[in-house]
């Protein structure tokens, strides 16, 4: 190691469920270069100091959504956060907030996956079309109505940013509602009414108190807070329309 090698202190919240009662902090001194991400810092620790350090990662290019963590208390993708931006200070990495910790930086995402499954995240055709008929036609306006909400990579940073989810883990939460909204807004889909029940349910949009931090931390600019809040309006409209129309107002 050359003398000029810079060393950064990385403080990691460690938790081994088989030996620890509760999480504790451990500090590692990691040599780094300016192009090294926080993820690479964690990999360096695993490769050189302690193979038991546990974290999820894969693509390294902020598209697979695996490597979210709290970096100095802020939810971020560790692959696109760089050590140079923290040096010479110590940097602290912890498992994503608001989720149960399974081990070290790995959290339990099973609840999130169940929420994704619950919102019927697939096209339920407004007008069925056979493959012989070719593709559906979508005007630029129709396309622009939903495309932003397709960009979610399911990294769940928005859940780590949402205190309401922390207080009530049943809340469907930002990413799942953004995905629900994505399908509702797609001109090919005709199932917004079916999804309304969940929007307005106890675990639905009214858990949101418009903190707005979810949209702030979203690495893909999906703006999930917007999706949630538009659906508050939609749910309220639906509620009042129900009074006016005996058939129910879900539209």
């Amino acid at each position: 190691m050359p003398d000029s090698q810079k060393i950064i202190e990385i403080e990691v919240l460690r938790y081994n469920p088989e030996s620890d009662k509760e999480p504790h902090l451990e500090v590692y001194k990691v040599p780094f270069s300016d192009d090294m991400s926080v993820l690479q810092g964690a990999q360096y620790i695993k490769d050189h100091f302690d193979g038991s350090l546990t974290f999820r990662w894969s693509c390294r290019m902020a598209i697979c959504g695996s490597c979210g963590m709290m970096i100095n208390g802020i939810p971020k993708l560790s692959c696109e956060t760089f050590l140079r931006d923290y040096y010479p200070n110590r940097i602290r990495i912890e498992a994503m907030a608001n989720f149960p910790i399974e081990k070290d930086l790995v959290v339990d995402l099973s609840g999130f996956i169940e929420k994704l499954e619950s919102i019927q995240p697939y096209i339920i055709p407004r007008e069925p079309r056979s493959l012989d008929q070719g593709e559906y036609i979508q005007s630029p306006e129709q396309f622009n109505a939903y495309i932003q909400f397709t960009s979610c990579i399911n990294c769940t940073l928005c859940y780590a940013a949402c205190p309401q989810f922390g207080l009530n883990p049943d809340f469907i939460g930002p990413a799942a509602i953004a995905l629900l909204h994505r399908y509702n807004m797609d001109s090919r889909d005709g199932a917004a009414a079916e999804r309304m029940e969940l929007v307005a349910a106890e675990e639905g949009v009214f858990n949101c108190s418009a903190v707005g931090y979810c949209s702030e931390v979203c690495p893909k600019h999906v703006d999930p807070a917007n999706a949630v809040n538009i659906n508050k309006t939609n749910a309220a409209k639906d509620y009042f329309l129900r009074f006016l129309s005996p058939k129910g107002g879900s539209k």
Partner: protein
Amino acid sequence: MSKRRPYVRSMDGWWKKNPFYVEYMIHESTALFVAAYAFTLLVGLVRLGQGEAAWNGWLEAMKSPLSLIFHVVFLLAIMYHTYTWFKIMPITLPPIIVGGKKVSPGAITGSGLLAAVVASVFMLGLVWRIAQ
């Protein structure tokens, strides 16, 4: 037997852990000042209905130094609330399309704040004219 033992972290004092949450809590709590001022005006209205003496008493109370201090505090809190209210407004609205382009969050906040300023100046002018 599974050896899983997921650790759930406490939410105690969650709002102190991030400056964004602190700002959110201040925003939310300043809503109380909006309510308090509305209540003050409501009391004035009730006193007006009770006759001239009651109304004058209320007016006198409004002029006391303590009341003036409260009014300054109300004003500051309500101004902060207005500012942060318009700041989160973009996330609560469906996309607004003007000339085929989505209006930016900054433009929405800006026009909201502008509208608030214009309305306040108008009200101020109106009251001024009546007082003359």
